[in-house]
């Protein structure tokens, strides 16, 4: 089947099936997909992603991703925990209703340490998990890629590269060609069913 006939049928389907989301290609091994991503980037595509059953070492560098900002969010969350735990204990036991027990000072900051630590950990953990969801834009029940019949295999043993149509240098034929050249199989055009 030639690229021309494909393009024509895609155009014909366009009105019925929604706008083009991007092009997806499949690879056999972590090694293959790592090399292929480098080739796709070298061809000038930037809105790319890889979909794999487990994280692949070296993929962040191959895709040119900047380091995650999650640690800084967690630092802020953790400090909030420390400060609020200290303030809570001081306000309750030394300011709002001071009471003497076992001869200890009202403001016994040494005794506040364990709870300061626990709340630091608790708020850091909450920030980590909900920060992760926010950075990944999850939960996301629908995504155009889920319409791809072979996509379910990426949680099993398939390795896929997607080039999105929002890419500034998007060109359908070029995307298909680059993926094929990099060793991609089952190269498929994905349409977004949502308007």
């Amino acid at each position: 089947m030639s690229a021309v006939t494909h393009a024509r049928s895609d155009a014909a389907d366009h009105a019925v099936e929604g706008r083009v989301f991007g092009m997806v290609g499949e690879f056999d091994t972590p090694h293959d997909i790592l090399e292929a991503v480098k080739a796709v980037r070298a061809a000038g595509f930037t809105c790319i992603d890889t979909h794999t059953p487990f994280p692949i070492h070296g993929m962040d560098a191959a895709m040119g991703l900047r380091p995650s900002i999650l640690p800084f969010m967690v630092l802020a969350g953790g400090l909030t925990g420390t400060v609020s735990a200290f303030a809570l204990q001081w306000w309750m036991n030394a300011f709002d209703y001071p009471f003497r027990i076992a001869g200890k000072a009202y403001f016994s900051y040494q005794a506040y340490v364990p709870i300061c630590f626990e709340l630091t950990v608790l708020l850091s953990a909450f920030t980590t998990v909900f920060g992760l969801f926010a950075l990944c834009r999850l939960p996301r029940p629908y995504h155009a890629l889920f319409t791809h019949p072979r996509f379910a295999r990426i949680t099993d043993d398939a390795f896929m590269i997607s080039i999105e149509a929002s890419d500034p240098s998007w060109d359908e034929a070029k995307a298909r060609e680059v993926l094929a050249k990099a060793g991609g199989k089952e190269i498929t055009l994905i349409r977004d069913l949502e308007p």
Partner: protein
Amino acid sequence: MSADSRAGSAILEPEPLLENNPSLHSITEAICAPAELPVEKTPIGWIISFMLALGLLGVFGLSVGMLLYKGIGIWGNNQPVGWAWDITNFVWWIGIGHAGTLISAILFLFKQKWRTSINRFAEAMTIFAVVCALQFPIIHTGRPWLAVYWLLPLPNQMSMWPNFRSPLMWDVFAVSTYGLVSLLFWYVGLIPDLATLRDRAKGKVRQVLYGVFAMGWRGSNRHWQHYEKAYLILAGLSTPLVLSVHSVVSFDFATSVLPGWHATIFPPYFVAGAVFSGFGLVMTLMVLAREFYGLKHLVTLRVLENMNKIMLVTGTMVGYAYGMEFFIAYYGGNPYELFTFKNRAFGPYWWAYWSMLTCNVISPQLFWFRAIRRSVPAMFVISIFVNIGMWFERFVIIVTSLHRDFTPSAWGYFRPTLFDIGTYAGTMGLFFTLFLLFLRFLPMIAISEIKGVSPYADPHGKHGHDHDHEHEKESH
């Protein structure tokens, strides 16, 4: 690699983490199979176990119902033994939980790849053990619906706040933080595997249920990037947390002025004991599960042997602490302290002390022998001994320190009542009910993580490695 060449190279190459070099798809199949069985094919062994667990859960319901109806007088604790089975069981359960966090967090930070075959299992065990542990402080208050005002800093009719200078208050925060963080850690680890179950689901109900909890995970590397960072941070947070939880539990005792409790060795001694007992229970359950579900090629003998080594180390640490306690009682020159320890070993509760010593100190020493370390029946029996011994340890610390007060007129002897026993046995029912549901509906081994350590995952080679790569995989 043939059997001959494997034997020949055994001295030079590490034993593989996974046997028979399973393909990625076969890993998915092996782990998902137990969770995907149709209802009518539920194994008979599972049904019988579940019925037994539900029966025990019923015993728990009855015991707690009676407690709420009559009050805590139905338990055997009374002066001078004001704390008895309730706190013994609490400390025992919370200690068991520690193995899960140790495996998922500390072994992760030390890059011990063998942890991937047992971490999901151990984390589940942690959460269910914490759930069981929490029952005791909640119900021992007698009126749990009011206890929320005594345990948490909430505005109440007395216009008073809890006393943050008390270790019991620290305990509330430590244990609830531990429970929540363990749950988050477990859930984050489950997301990619829930997506696997979603993608393989045959029916609509399964697809939607797993789909909701998988939150639309699509294995994107832009997500994996944050995910791996989050996992590392959670491991980093859980490591000091797990050390702090049992330290804080030990403060409940150590900050008092009671001979037998007032000791600076308590925090490390409690943490070592907690890890020891937790590995004991993981071992007991894992030996059964890998046999029953045919997961021997994923949870290999090498993994079990490593766990036995950790039990040997922590068991020896616990033995050292027992010895050191006695030495300090003698060397410290405090007659009350010395009496407490003599009373522990040779007083009315001598049977508890020597049971503890036999189970905790002597039985793990058998793991010095390689043949015992690698014998599944032996490790199964020893792991049960460890669980019994660690329960006795908490009983010994708590009851023998209390039952002979400073004045002999206040001496007493604690005996558990039927309700003490019923409540404890009942929490076993609660634990096994939750655990069996986990085995039935969730992947008991972390699928994406175990794929990550399989030979196929190495991006620097192609297919067909016969051994796992122990070398550091640096990203370029």
